[in-house]
């Protein structure tokens, strides 16, 4: 392997191992001097850390996770969680009895109706903002946009609260492959460390795989050389920003090792078939693989629910996909013992109008709409809140975006009143005055 000459410079004995073992973290770090000395050894082992059963079970033990199924464009509460059959606003579909006594949902979600033991429905969201951009700002961050401060979205907050600093896996992954309504998500004042790994063009994150023209050993060695040569500069110019560059490079190899998590062909054919055949289903399977490996937050967006025309056909198609994919996901999580650690949220930027317009569509509506929470920390089989018989207003249990965020954080056992300090300004995790909905929490 390597030999360490008196000069302290470690030269590999043979070409086959190239410069592996060329440098040592410890020796170079000493006094910030740029000496390429000693041997670096451990990193190669870490590449395959994810494959180790021991590590995986360690991660599983302590982790809590969130999967956000983002219904981009705004799903209709009438055709999902709050059906009003027979009302003039109700549309053509029936309501069906679920396996939770007294709880009915749209007939477009028959599989989910049989899994209500995991799920609580909130039917009383009144979030007021009914345009896509600002509605998404509100439902992604739990508060109104404010020009003086950039708020982090839920994924970034969860990544920060549940992720581990030295994590080898990404802590916030966002899959958004359709173009309608695509938004990257933002870590705001929490900084780029908690920004999502964003997949928009393909199912594999960009730049996560090593180029074939660079050998694995060279890839590691040049990274170690980068660290060594940059150390003195960084040590004498310590700042949040300068340090962040090094932290980013330190995470590269861990993240590269997680590339395989995005490869669903590593799943048995039977498993792929269960989640199939839609892209959304495949992405739900990726989400499961990610959280199983320790990723705290995964968002999977399904677009485009914005049914200004032909609302009912749109929902027939999209609800079938949601119903199947989410049901398989819940079953799979449960069978793997992950559902008790994983909160599954279905949410969009708003709901849809009670009125059916002349194109048989429903328009944007944020005054009385629904979402659902399943799994970790949730009391299943509950339908919380109530809208009037035609679905125009909330008549019971009105909840704001901030209340929903307080509820989500409470389900994760994160103190929603905990405050970040931004400059001199305290920013609580869920907005001031918010209150968790105790009725849906277990």
């Amino acid at each position, binding site marked *: 392997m390597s030999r360490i000459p008196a000069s302290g410079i470690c030269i590999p004995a043979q070409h086959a191992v*190239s410069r592996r073992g060329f440098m040592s973290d410890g020796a170079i770090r000493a006094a910030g001097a740029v000496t390429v000395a000693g041997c670096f050894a451990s990193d190669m082992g870490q590449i395959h850390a994810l494959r180790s059963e021991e590590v995986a079970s360690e991660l599983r033990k302590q982790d809590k996770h969130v999967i956000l199924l983002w219904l981009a464009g705004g799903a209709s509460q009438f055709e999902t969680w709050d059906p009003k059959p027979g009302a003039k606003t109700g549309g053509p579909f029936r309501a069906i009895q679920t396996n939770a006594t007294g709880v009915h949902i749209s007939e477009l979600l028959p599989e989910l109706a049989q899994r209500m033991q995991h799920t609580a429905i909130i039917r009383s969201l009144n979030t007021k903002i009914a345009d896509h951009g600002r509605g998404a700002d509100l439902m992604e961050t739990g508060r109104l946009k404010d020009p003086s401060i950039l708020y982090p979205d839920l994924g970034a907050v969860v990544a920060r609260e549940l992720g581990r600093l030295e994590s080898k896996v990404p802590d916030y992954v966002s899959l958004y492959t359709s173009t309608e309504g695509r938004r990257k998500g933002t870590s705001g004042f929490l900084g780029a460390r908690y920004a999502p790994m964003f997949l928009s063009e393909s199912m594999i994150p960009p730049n996560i795989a090593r180029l074939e023209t660079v050998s694995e050993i060279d890839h590691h060695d040049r990274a170690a050389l980068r660290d060594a040569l940059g150390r003195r*500069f960084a040590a004498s110019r310590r700042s949040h920003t300068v340090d962040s560059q090094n932290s980013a490079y330190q995470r590269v190899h861990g993240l590269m090792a997680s590339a395989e998590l995005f490869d669903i062909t590593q799943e048995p054919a039977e498993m792929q078939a269960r989640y199939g055949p839609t892209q959304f289903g495949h992405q739900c399977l990726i989400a499961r693989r990610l959280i199983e490996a320790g990723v705290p937050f995964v968002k999977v967006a399904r677009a485009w629910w914005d049914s200004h025309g032909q609302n009912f056909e749109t929902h027939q198609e999209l609800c079938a996909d949601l119903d199947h994919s989410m049901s398989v996901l819940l079953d799979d999580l449960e069978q793997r013992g992950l559902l008790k650690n994983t909160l599954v949220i279905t949410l969009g930027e708003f709901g849809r109008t009670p009125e059916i317009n002349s194109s048989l569509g429903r328009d944007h509506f944020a005054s009385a709409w629904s979402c659902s929470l399943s799994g970790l920390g949730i009391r299943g089989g509950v339908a919380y809140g109530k809208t009037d018989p035609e679905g125009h207003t909330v008549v019971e249990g009105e909840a704001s975006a901030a209340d929903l965020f307080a509820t989500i954080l409470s389900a994760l056992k994160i103190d929603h009143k905990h405050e970040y300090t931004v400059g001199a300004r305290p920013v609580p995790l869920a907005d001031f005055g918010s209150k968790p909905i105790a009725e849906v929490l277990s």
Partner: protein
Amino acid sequence: MLSHMGIFCPCHLLVFVLYASNVANSQELLPADTEISNAINHYVQQHLVTSGVAAVEPADDLTLLRRASLDLAGRVPTSVERDWFMNQPPSDRRRLLVDRLMESPDFDFHQRNWLDETLLPNQPYNDEFRSYLLTAVQGRRSWDTVFRDIMKASHAEGPDKGAAQFLKSRVRELDDLTNDTAILFFGVNISCAKCHDHPLVADWKQDHFYGMQAFFQRTYQTRKTSSVAERPFGEVKFANVGGESRTAAFMFLTGEVVADRTPQLPDEERKQLEERVRKLEHDDAEAEIIVPEFRPRDELVELALHDTQDRFFARNIVNRVWARLLGTGLVDPPDQMHSGNAPSHAELLEWLTGDMVSHGYDLRRLIHGIVLSEAYGRSSEWTSGSEPPAASTFALAHTRPLTPRQLGASLHLVIGSPEQWPAVANTEEWTKRRTDLENQANGWVREFEQPGENFQIAVDEALFFSNSSRVQDDLLRDSDDRLLGQLKKIEDQSQGIEKLWLAVLNRVPQTDELASATTWLDHVPDKRDESRKQLLWAILAGPEFRFNH
């Protein structure tokens, strides 16, 4: 507009320490004809003495060359520039360098880029706006003229048309027009005064927010031509905390109000006018744009430029230019200029603001003065084990991340053949090369994040450098026209390493660096070309190249 007032106002319960206002009395200021850099030196030094902080040593010449090149030319220096610089008399080197850089076409590109990044941060490729800004900067238009152009939003064809993009990109959101104008041109954030008087900043009342909004409420976009226009009527109504409905006056931040001189028309005529505006706004048919007699945005410009008391407009740009060059504003954050957030150097800000106004809002003059100051020229290194001095003392230079365009241009410059750049900046060939470089830099903007407050470098960037074919196959190519290609031909290993260090980091390697690089290249002798690529990669991806220091 009133739909969600008071529901989730984001700003209550702020904690703030109110400072006594210590804005200096202008009579005590240094004489107006003091050189800008001397005025800066005087006030910064005074502050250091008062706070018992010692400044670090000046940066060495090569560090300063790199810093000033990045700040004034938007890129690292070429080897020809370095040779020229080192041949100047040491006593006058810095001034000659600054003059030379500011006369180069590079300055205009970079100044344009800075204005673009500041004013349209979410649209890095708005060609119309960028082309307007370049015209304005090349024509040496003063800052008040640029402000006029932007607020006027002319729809006439021509080089100034792009100025309208500032308003156009925000025209759908009246709150954005209001807040962004206040933040970017006046350095104040009045958004918290929307729902109620500002809870902490005594200066800002609801009347200020809606007063500012009144100047934009009539602004709309025509449907057919997508022009920014103004309705000849319209007012802002708002409910105060007591629920009382009020009509907003056209009121500037100083409290000064301009009378509403909207012509009173007979009902019939007014209805016709309303109908014409409605069509312009909503119909596809072509129609002549109505230019009203009373134009609130023009009124805003006049009020802002005649504000001789608070001088929001001038103070804001002074503070922003300062923050750009020194890493932290005299008022920080730059959108919080109010009596509760005192400047670190109140007299200096006053003096510079006075200079800005009396010299016709000439940004070049201010930039020139700042870059020649002692504070700008200090070292950024802090080797002592103790805590470094507070940023607001300017005792130590800030280490600042490069913008995407600075980084893109610098990457292209160093991996090519920097030696082939001509010696004199003002030649046709230079302009052509620099224009090409600017276009190449444009192609990298999406790969890097624009630095902002509390900026962190994302792992995406590290992954990009580590694994993208763009880096591996383009930046690290070793054909003859590239730095790597030239290094291949140098027999003497140490000489090659020195050339690499000079080209990329603008300095010679230290002894231990030279030893490490030599070991790196030597010990797999049959793969030396590959090793050299890796060495280049390691310093391109390292912190010294990534930051302006």
